[in-house]
């Protein structure tokens, strides 16, 4: 039982960390995408959306190469004593961040685009600098989008299998997450414990979706 708890804890840690990192990274990116008028912003948007359509194994394959000992990235990190990130927890976080990037960018971008230029113009005429207006007006108005992004990223990271299998390998305590464990339990014909984890994920998924819809209802009612 304790190894199951370890797997669940590791999975929650990965999902939590990924969500935190993505909210910080995706918010400025989504802001830029929502407000940029150049066509090349759509190129960037298309690149960030790639993980939606790519098979996780393709993404995992390239990540494995990029995080492996012979990649240029590792060459750059060598002075810091890092020789490889493949099959490590840090590598798993990087992979999850890239894999879930579109699930963070899309809702936040939509929220920024939906509010339009007007609240920021009103803020400017009330003496708020652009940075001030971003934090005091744009972010609070985008709250529903930020919440949706956080929920989607967290849930998506918990559910991922292909990418973690490719770059994580399933090392206990380091890269073995719930979805990998279920697969291995089934392979080992340990159906009882597979059931336990699988049913737990179903309950979790249901709770997440219910929470999301309830929040959307609340935010929806708050709008004028």
């Amino acid at each position, binding site marked *: 039982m304790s190894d199951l708890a370890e797997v669940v804890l590791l999975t929650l840690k990965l999902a939590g960390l990924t969500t935190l990192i993505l909210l910080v990274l995706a918010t400025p990116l989504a802001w830029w995408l929502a407000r940029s008028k150049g066509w090349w912003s759509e190129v960037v948007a298309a690149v960030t959306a790639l993980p939606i359509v790519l098979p996780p194994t393709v993404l995992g394959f390239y990540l494995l190469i990029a995080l492996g000992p012979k990649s240029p990235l590792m060459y750059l990190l060598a002075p810091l004593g890092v020789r490889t990130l493949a099959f490590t927890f840090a590598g798993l976080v990087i992979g999850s961040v890239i894999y879930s990037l579109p699930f963070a960018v899309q809702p936040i971008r939509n929220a920024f685009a939906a509010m339009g230029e007007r609240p920021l113009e*009103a803020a*400017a005429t*009330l*003496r*708020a600098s652009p940075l001030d207006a971003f934090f*005091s007006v744009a972010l609070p108005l985008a709250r529903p989008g930020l919440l949706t992004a956080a929920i989607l990223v967290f849930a998506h990271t918990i559910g991922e299998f292909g990418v973690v299998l490719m770059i994580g390998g399933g090392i206990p305590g380091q890269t073995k997450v719930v979805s990998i464990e279920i697969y291995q339990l089934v392979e080992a014909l340990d159906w009882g414990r597979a059931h336990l984890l699988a049913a737990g994920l179903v309950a979790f998924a249901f709770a997440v979706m219910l929470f999301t819809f309830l929040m959307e209802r609340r935010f929806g009612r708050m709008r004028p």
Partner: protein
Amino acid sequence: MAEDGIEARFSGRLGEFRLDVAFTAPARGITGLFGPSGCGKTTLLRCLAGLTRMDGRLSLGGEVWQDAREFVPPHRRHAAYVFQDADLFSHLSVRGNLEFGLRRAGTQAATGLDEVVALLSLEGLLARSTAKLSGGERQRVAIGRALLSQPRLLLLDEPLAGLDAAAKAEILPYLERLHDTLAIPVIHVSHDLAEIARLADQLIVMKAGRVVASGPCKAGVVGGGATEDVRAMLEAQEPDVVTGLALAALMAGLAPVGSSPAFPTSLVPPRSPRLA
């Protein structure tokens, strides 16, 4: 008059539309900006606030906000802007909206919250969410929010256009009270001549991106210089009898007397002399 008031000149394009205007406005009192829809009133107002950038020159009280070398960004102009649909911040309460500009005005705040709340009768609304306000209440809060940012210029972009007759009647007295207490220039955009006749000291008439007439209201629209062109445009815009009469009086420079039952005297009230 231009020394301590507004001196503005803008020219530029927005797609098919071309703006080419120059005008001055006094340092105190309401300047009505009138013209048909699409004539560039709002664009001009946005240029004054710095929200739209066109070539030109703009100074207020001798301080340059825009010329060939300089462009003061909107948040440093202290030009408050009341939008047609109020555009209150929906994530803040009424009080939060009112305090938004006030908190950013620093220690130089001469106009206090209590003062503005009293002026616009906002006492009962402070704790409310902006979603639960009527159209008239929203505009009152928007005007209060603008005043509390301690503006040096107040821009009103058709603040009454989206309101029904009852809400208009509710707001107008507040705007009149504003007129009597404010010591800054106010530009009031409207396509409703009766509204302008009631509030403005000076009138600027625009058509197709140009100023076609301007002058003090009391002395007639353009001090006798109204062309047939302008006259025809104004009359075509406001076909109803009452405003037509108000217009005629305005252009002739006559304050109407209450002899005709078809003509409410309140349309063109005598202006207070200290603001004229």
